[in-house]
């Protein structure tokens, strides 16, 4: 049906994913990290949709829906955490909030 080359769709997905990853690795603000994660989720979803369209199967879309579910749950918990972290540490800088680490025994 569609004249869009699959390779290009996948490339788009790869570009979006790497952009999201760059954001995730660079940003120190938790909210921005979550946004970058959303970008990555979305890119993965795009790849699934493209694969589903390639084979004419519903599975791609189903996986997209599952990713959507995952993203919704993740955002709910992630934003709750962000609120909590802001409340306790008065900052969202994730380089400062690193309590969960192994200390020298």
């Amino acid at each position: 049906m569609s004249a869009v080359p699959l390779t290009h769709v996948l490339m788009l997905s790869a570009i979006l994913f790497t952009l999201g990853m760059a954001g995730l690795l660079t940003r120190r603000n938790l909210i921005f990290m979550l946004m970058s994660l959303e970008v990555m989720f979305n890119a993965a979803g795009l790849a699934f949709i493209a694969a589903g369209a390639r084979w004419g199967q519903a599975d791609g879309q189903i996986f997209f829906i599952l990713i959507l579910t995952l993203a919704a749950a993740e955002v709910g918990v992630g934003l709750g955490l962000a609120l909590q972290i802001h409340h306790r540490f008065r900052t969202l800088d994730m380089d400062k909030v690193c309590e969960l680490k192994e200390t020298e025994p």
Partner: protein
Amino acid sequence: MTILLFYLAAFVAVIATSLVITRTNAVHALIYLIVSLLATGFVFLLLGAYFAALLEVIVYAGAVMVLFLFVLMMLGLGRDGEGRERELLQPHLWYGPAFLCGVLLGEWGILFLGWSQPFPLHAVDAKQVGISLLGPYFLAVELASMLLLAGLVGAYHLTELQRRPGA
């Protein structure tokens, strides 16, 4: 026509996403993210997955992002946080991630561009998705609902704790 629309949408998506990860104003970044999601949704539409496209708009752009905006407004991260964010986002932070992501993108490029022969793409309508979803993927649906329930409880618990002073 379709392919032109695709390139347009892809262009918009890439530009908007780049802006998402570089903005210092969280609300602006979020608006760009919404634009990026809408563009991706349009790509879905072009790929014949209109159900997924509409879900992307309704759930992702329409609901998840609103949640983000809510929290941004509660935390006052818009224009007020811009200065702070600019401090956090020093240019030298970009070098490493950019390199790593470049490598990854290159690898994918090699991988994807290797498939030179064109594939026909097929539209998949909502009915097909629904039949698969409640047939072979029924367990996945149950798991997803469990996940959502867990997310609900988790979010409720996390934000509930906040209201207690000194907790």
